[in-house]
């Protein structure tokens, strides 16, 4: 499926939210960008999807979209999961003129759950994360007011201690997702359940990253050209997932052959494992490029 336009029923206002709700979100977004990594509170509106299912990201996207935007939605790297496809159709339905796409390069706004696209995003693109748990300090401090004070003072001693204890116990930092990451040398954020593989993409990016937590009613941002350092220790450095096989060779995607992507492990009926790119669009585009070169006529 490719770029396609849809009409909305006349009963909806553009963007579903009322204009005051959008303005509140827009003010929060401006402050989130001005104070990188800080969780800006806002009044979350009731949305037609279940809480915890991306209302925070959804509201940001609705506050951003205009009729000349092209929107893409991914869930674990896939555009065609039921959740991703439904959200994409919802945007097209309530935002008249907005174009839907599955192609990363065509999108102006991408809403995501659990992945950052493999292809480096451009300065004119915005990635909106759906965030289930916005505050990395929850694991060490139950009191929300105290957490806010700790964030404000950039006091992360207890978080460091927790990480260090993990390290002593397990010999390495065991966090697989939601890796605590320090933004612009001050705030530590929960970058949402992306794999460690994606964390370095937050650092000195060209695009703008926006994070929305609907249940906690928080918005935060990582602006372009901003440092994003995963918390780590000099003797146990941060590492991304390792995709080398038992012979020490980097596994390739069984579909497109890529050796530089985050791979999902698939188990066939005969219990043979295979590995595929998690980012389906990247995989498809890579496959097209290799199949169609040098003649690229069928690429459209």
């Amino acid at each position, binding site marked *: 499926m490719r770029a396609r336009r849809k009409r909305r029923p006349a009963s909806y206002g553009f963007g579903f939210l009322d204009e005051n709700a959008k303005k509140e979100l827009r*003010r*929060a977004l401006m402050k989130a960008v*001005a104070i990188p990594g800080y969780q800006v509170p806002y009044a979350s509106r009731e949305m037609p999807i279940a809480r915890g299912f991306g209302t925070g990201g959804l509201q940001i996207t609705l506050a951003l979209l205009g009729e000349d935007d092209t929107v893409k939605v991914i869930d674990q790297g896939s555009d065609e999961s039921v959740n991703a496809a439904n959200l994409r159709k919802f945007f097209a339905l309530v935002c008249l003129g907005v174009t839907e796409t599955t192609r990363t390069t065509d999108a102006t706004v991408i809403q995501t759950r659990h992945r950052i696209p493999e292809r480096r995003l451009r300065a004119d693109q915005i990635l909106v994360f759906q965030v289930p748990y916005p505050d990395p300090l929850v694991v060490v401090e139950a009191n929300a007011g105290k957490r806010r004070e700790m964030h404000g003072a950039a006091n992360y001693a207890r978080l460091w201690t927790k990480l260090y204890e993990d390290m002593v116990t397990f010999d390495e930092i065991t966090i697989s997702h939601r890796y605590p990451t320090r933004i612009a040398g001050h705030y530590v954020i929960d970058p949402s359940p992306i794999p460690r593989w994606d964390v370095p993409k937050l650092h000195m990016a060209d695009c703008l990253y926006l994070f929305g937590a609907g249940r906690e009613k928080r918005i935060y941002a990582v602006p372009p*050209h901003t440092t994003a350092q995963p918390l780590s220790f000099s003797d146990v450095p941060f590492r991304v997932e390792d995709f080398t096989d038992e012979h020490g060779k980097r596994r390739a995607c069984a579909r497109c052959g890529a050796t530089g992507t985050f791979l999902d492990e698939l188990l066939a009926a005969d219990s043979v494992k295979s590995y595929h790119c998690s980012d389906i669009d990247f995989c498809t585009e890579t496959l097209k490029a290799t199949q169609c070169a040098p003649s690229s006529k069928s690429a459209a």
Partner: protein
Amino acid sequence: MATTLEIPTIYRPNNQQRLFRLLLDAMAHPGSVAALSAWTDEAPAYLAVLAALCDGAVTIADLDAMLEDADWRFLEAARADFAGARFIVARGDRSPAAGLAPTLGDLTAPEMGATIILVIAELVRPGLSVQASGPGIKGTREISLGTLDQEWITRRADWVRFFPMGVDLLICDRARVLALPRSTRIKSEGAAS
């Protein structure tokens, strides 16, 4: 018989969406100049900025009486003096008043730090220029601030000294705007003039 209220361009939702995206992009790229004129129908940039961001939920301090009654009606925002205002509008071609002390927010609510909209005659033409770095800026960047009075940059340094508290500046000329969020570090020595 009911007369249709003529809603100025900058108060129409689709234009406000476009203006907001330009402002968000400006905030994400401190010092980059956004041209607003395609969405303002000749309204001044400072008014377009206020229209895109304000409504009845916020307060505005209009330090130099630039807003007319009709503007206040459309903006719906409440008037405030600088001490409590979320938004402050002032002429930037002249020095800030000695006693001007905008809200900086506090450690647990830095977002309450004011957004200050400074209106100047000309942004780009030679005049004040500063070296800037920080989030949104690749390396360092020389930012031309045109006819902005340098005292604003001096005062800003005091206001943003204790990050995350601070103020965020949106500097406008007739049709353009650039942002200096509190996260931007400025070496003020670059002042020409």
